[in-house]
């Protein structure tokens, strides 16, 4: 059956916008390069080499997984942003490529010293091959299936890649130096946005990978200081609704939505569904993308019927009233069985049509 992307676009963006005209709960999945390689048999370097090849591989993967979402995994302020910094600062030895999963950056190598931070060159994303091809891929996806691509930005995930564990020590011993690094990363992220505008067009939303908003990483005050204030500045420049992703085990979701006007939150934790029920009660206008379908529990070691039960629980708990997008926590790991992934859209088909029948 041919995938009806127009229906998916309506389902997902109407849910984000809080519309009542949604047929069923949307299914969003984070399928990274490894999943695309697994489905298409292509290597990461093959994917990155041509926007046409990459776009087709992404579309066929997300169609195969029957999601309502689609995105270019590399167009994200994580490893590829580290690659861009590595290139512009002649530190490519910090980067390790893999055949069937995304490249990684050795944390703390690019900004090992104070001097590295002082002299850090901001990448030109329009000239970096992987970034440029990723942006062209996003444009192609827009054109091929008419699915507006959401831009993903971040500060702290890039800080961690460039400065490593020293970033946490800098908070106490040299906060001004750390802020200088954050400022440079902000500048770089705005360059990503400018290139996105030029190549892909205006994004419908910004998806913030806000890795600092985690109790086990830092205080909320520090999270606001080293990431939150920059997100607020992005919001002043990019006039579209922002969504927050955080994959830490003890997120500051309730605190952060009081400070920053996010339209949606997405997290890997907490895994207690009661947390999300309570969050929805307190913040009925904020879309929940989640909530506790665990890629390291039922998705990895369970059966399709275990996954179905979890999806059912999530839908019955969070979908009534709308503003809920069903999504497994974290990206889909290599070892998850395909039937377990496909159990999600099947369960949504069974339980997720509006109005939700909670009986």
């Amino acid at each position, binding site marked *: 059956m041919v995938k009806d992307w127009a229906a998916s676009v309506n389902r997902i963006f109407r849910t984000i916008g809080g519309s009542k005209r949604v047929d069923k709960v949307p299914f969003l999945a984070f399928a990274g390069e*490894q999943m695309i390689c697994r489905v298409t048999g292509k290597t990461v370097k093959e994917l990155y080499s041509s926007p046409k090849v990459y776009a087709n591989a992404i579309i066929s993967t997300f169609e195969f997984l029957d999601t309502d979402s689609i995105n270019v995994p590399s167009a994200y302020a994580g490893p590829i942003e580290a690659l861009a910094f590595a290139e512009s600062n002649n530190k490519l030895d910090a980067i*390790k490529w*893999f055949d069937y*999963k995304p490249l*990684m*950056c*050795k*944390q*703390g190598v690019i900004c090992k010293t104070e001097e590295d931070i002082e002299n850090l060159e901001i990448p030109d994303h329009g000239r970096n091959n992987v970034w440029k091809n990723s942006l062209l891929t996003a444009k192609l996806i827009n054109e091929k299936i008419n699915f507006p691509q959401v831009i993903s930005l971040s500060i702290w995930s890039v800080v*961690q890649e460039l400065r*490593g*564990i020293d970033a*946490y*020590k800098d*908070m*106490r*011993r040299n906060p001004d130096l750390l802020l200088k690094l954050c400022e440079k990363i902000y500048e770089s992220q705005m360059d990503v946005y400018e290139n996105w505008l030029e190549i892909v067009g205006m994004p419908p939303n910004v998806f913030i990978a806000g890795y600092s908003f985690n*109790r*086990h*990483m*830092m*205080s909320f005050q*520090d999270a606001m200081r080293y990431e939150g204030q920059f997100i607020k500045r992005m919001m002043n420049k990019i006039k579209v609704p922002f969504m927050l992703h955080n*994959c*830490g*085990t003890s997120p500051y979701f309730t605190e952060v939505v009081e400070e920053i006007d996010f339209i949606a939150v997405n997290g*890997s*934790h907490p895994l207690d569904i009661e947390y999300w029920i309570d969050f929805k009660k307190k913040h009925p206008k904020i879309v929940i993308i989640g909530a506790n379908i*665990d*890629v*390291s*529990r*039922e998705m*990895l*070691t*369970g059966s399709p019927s275990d996954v179905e039960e979890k999806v059912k629980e999530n839908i019955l708990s969070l979908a009534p009233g709308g503003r809920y997008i069903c999504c497994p926590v*974290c*990206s*889909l*790991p*290599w*070892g998850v069985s395909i039937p377990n992934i496909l159990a999600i859209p099947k369960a949504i088909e069974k339980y997720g049509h509006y109005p939700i029948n909670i009986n």
Partner: protein
Amino acid sequence: MTEEESLEKLKDAIIKGDSEKAILLVNESIKMGIQAKEILNRAILKGAEEVGNLYEEGEYFLPDLLMTGDAINAATELLKSSFGQESEIESKGTILIGTVEGDIHDLGKSLVVSLLKGQGFDVVDLGSDVPPEEFLRKAKEINPILIGLSGLMTMSISKMIETVNLLKSENIQSRIIIGGGILSKESCEMVGADDFAKDGWEGVKKINNLI
């Protein structure tokens, strides 16, 4: 300054994560004739314990733990070098640790290493992107009481399984703990490890329990 005051100041320096001050105060305590074990137990470990409590109470965070870890390491290293074998500071055992092959994240692992050293363990850190065979080779060489496998990515689980299988097939008797935010009881059982931890501090507590 009395002996008591000197040790109290050292404890405060540890709590504040002030390595420079900790070194000065260790030197001062040594000059006063205080024995290494007294300095360790009454100041350094007391300070470490208090920092642990402050973290659990939500007063302290990861940056504070790291600064304290550095201060503890600096202080204990100075004690060992000053007293030599007379320090009577015994290692609680050797721990082998590393991030599994294909994953080069090391934030959580580095935190655990820093804190374990501060608590008196000898830690052999293999770094990141460590192949199963390297864990095995080193485990045979040093016979650690515990092996810690770290991995941030969901894709690291399969490499943890491979590493644990290899270690067990070669009859390595060390306890094994896996660490990473993506882990669960179910995935720990799947890997075949003795326990798992989702963050660095939890890792240190569980390692102490395991041994």
